[in-house]
């Protein structure tokens, strides 16, 4: 008995994660765990987009505990069908028939020999199949007020200009040696829109989900740090102190038509953007219609929260040491920062253009809000504006480009998916 106990306990020790930590791979895992802890610190103590960064960091921690197997795919063992099995009706069977309907051959899944996958593998399918990001967009749609954009549709231009960061970063990533699929996914970080970045990366380069999600959400949390210097650099004091005139009120009918019109135009022009834009606009239509309040409440709360937990943890769980601990990740972090900065610059510069053409009626500071990062970027416009002229309230004017940026980056994502998928 002592023998078998010793065998058993050494076997258990050998298959424990601790033994694995003292291998080369184990050290990489330790490094990843340390990174996960740093992200947890940022999420909790610094409140960097905690709703996603906390689950992402924890998923990263779990997947790097050796032998935890939480992301392992299942192994399915299929065996030829015997009469005995067929009668027991206990198994999921596959019957292979010829065209005439005669049974050629049968198989069944041997459940005892098959190994089921890890918990996070199953939850991850919602990311892999592109299901979670559109459902989060459904919830975001129910929470977004497109009123300021309807009141001032020219804001769309700023939402388009701020996508510059996506495409310039795409060139940069290609120069750094990423392939086109990877470069497109990295570029989308500049969209400053989490679900869009995750959707695009899940479609084009799923192995980069970890670093791209971390970059996207970290920089979104850092928008109040990244944007203001760029905004001050590119604008004159006179431009920053422009007071814009109060937006017109928007009628309920316009609000109801808006999501339908956007769906029609965008999905017809860029069909690959349909899941994202379609769900965003369904959510918004549900919100503005005012007739399905109980669905709206659930879409923006419970459904969105459930999906957020699953998405966060499983995106984090793609960040294995192999996927994350390499120079690529550093490249992605650097490129992501460029993407945000260039997007901001694009928005502000286009804002200056509008300032010129409007005869000084447009404050170029609202251009930076075009990167999306709703509603943080709009608040930054407000804040920087208030520095120059404390009586200037740009928030509502910045919300226009801000929500236009969501549509803009979804369109850009659609174009890239259409080209590279």
């Amino acid at each position, binding site marked *: 008995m002592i023998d078998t106990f010793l065998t058993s306990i050494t076997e258990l020790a050998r298959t424990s994660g601790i033994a694995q930590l003292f291998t080369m791979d184990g050290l990489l895992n330790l490094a990843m765990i340390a990174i996960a802890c740093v992200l947890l610190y940022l999420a909790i103590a610094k409140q960097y987009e905690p709703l996603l960064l906390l689950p992402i960091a924890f998923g990263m921690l779990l997947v790097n505990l050796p032998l935890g197997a939480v992301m392992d795919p299942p192994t399915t063992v299929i065996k030829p069908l015997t009469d005995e099995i067929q009668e027991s009706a206990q198994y999921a069977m596959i019957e292979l028939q010829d065209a005439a309907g005669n049974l050629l051959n049968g198989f069944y899944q041997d459940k005892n020999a098959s190994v089921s996958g890890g918990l996070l593998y199953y939850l991850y399918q919602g990311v892999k199949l592109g299901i979670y990001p559109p459902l989060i967009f459904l919830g975001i749609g129910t*929470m977004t007020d497109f009123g300021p954009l309807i009141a001032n*549709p020219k804001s769309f231009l700023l939402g*388009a200009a701020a*996508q510059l960061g996506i495409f310039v970063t*795409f060139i940069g990533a290609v120069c750094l040696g990423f392939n*086109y699929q990877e470069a497109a996914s990295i570029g989308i970080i500049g969209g400053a829109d989490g679900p869009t970045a995750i959707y695009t990366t899940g479609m084009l380069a799923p192995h980069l989900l970890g670093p791209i999600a971390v970059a996207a959400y970290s920089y979104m949390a850092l928008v109040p740090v990244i944007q203001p210097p760029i905004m001050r650099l590119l604008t004159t004091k006179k431009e920053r102190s422009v007071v814009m005139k109060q937006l017109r009120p928007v009628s309920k009918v316009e609000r109801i038509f808006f999501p339908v019109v956007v769906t029609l135009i965008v999905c017809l022009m860029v069909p690959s953007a349909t899941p994202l834009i379609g769900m965003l606009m369904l959510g918004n239509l549900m919100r503005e219609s005012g007739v399905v309040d109980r669905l709206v409440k659930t879409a923006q709360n419970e459904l969105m929260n459930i999906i957020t937990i699953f998405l966060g943890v499983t995106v984090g769980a793609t960040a294995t040491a192999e996927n994350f601990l390499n120079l690529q990740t550093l490249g992605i972090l650097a490129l992501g920062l460029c993407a945000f900065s260039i997007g901001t610059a694009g928005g502000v510069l286009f804002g200056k253009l509008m300032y010129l053409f409007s005869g000084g009626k447009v404050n170029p500071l609202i251009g930076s809000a075009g990167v999306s990062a709703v509603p943080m970027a709009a608040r930054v416009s407000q804040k920087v504006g208030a520095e120059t002229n404390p009586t200037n309230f740009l*928030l*509502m004017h910045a919300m226009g480009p801000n929500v236009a940026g969501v549509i*803009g980056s979804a369109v850009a994502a659609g174009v890239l998916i259409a*080209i590279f998928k």
Partner: protein
Amino acid sequence: MEEITWGNTLSVVLTGLVVVFAALVILIFLVWLMGKIFIAIGNKKNKEQEQQKQDARRQAQQAMADQAKADQVKTEQAGTGQIEEGIPPEVVAAISAAVAVVMEESAPGAAYTIQRVQRAGVGRSAWGNAGLAAQLSPFDR
């Protein structure tokens, strides 16, 4: 498109920017058009509504006066009663039934009928406040 060349890369960038701008410019036009149309319609309606509101105010004053009278006289009126227009009949039915159930408990067997069903006043919707509150919602993607 897999082969990495400067031509391919720049063409992707150009394509992307053109499509994004094209889509959003079309949206600008349509949303602007929509705005024009609905503002035009809205102005027309507003004038009518203004008129209606004044009428309603007059009616309400009249009704309050009536009510005061009715309370004074305290006569039990049988019949169909007064039901404000625009209240769907199902709601009336529901209110009636609710009253019935409650009444049945306190005075079983008594016959009664609904005298008046009116909407409670609706406060003005402060567009600015509500919109702002939504914008500042706690869930920052």
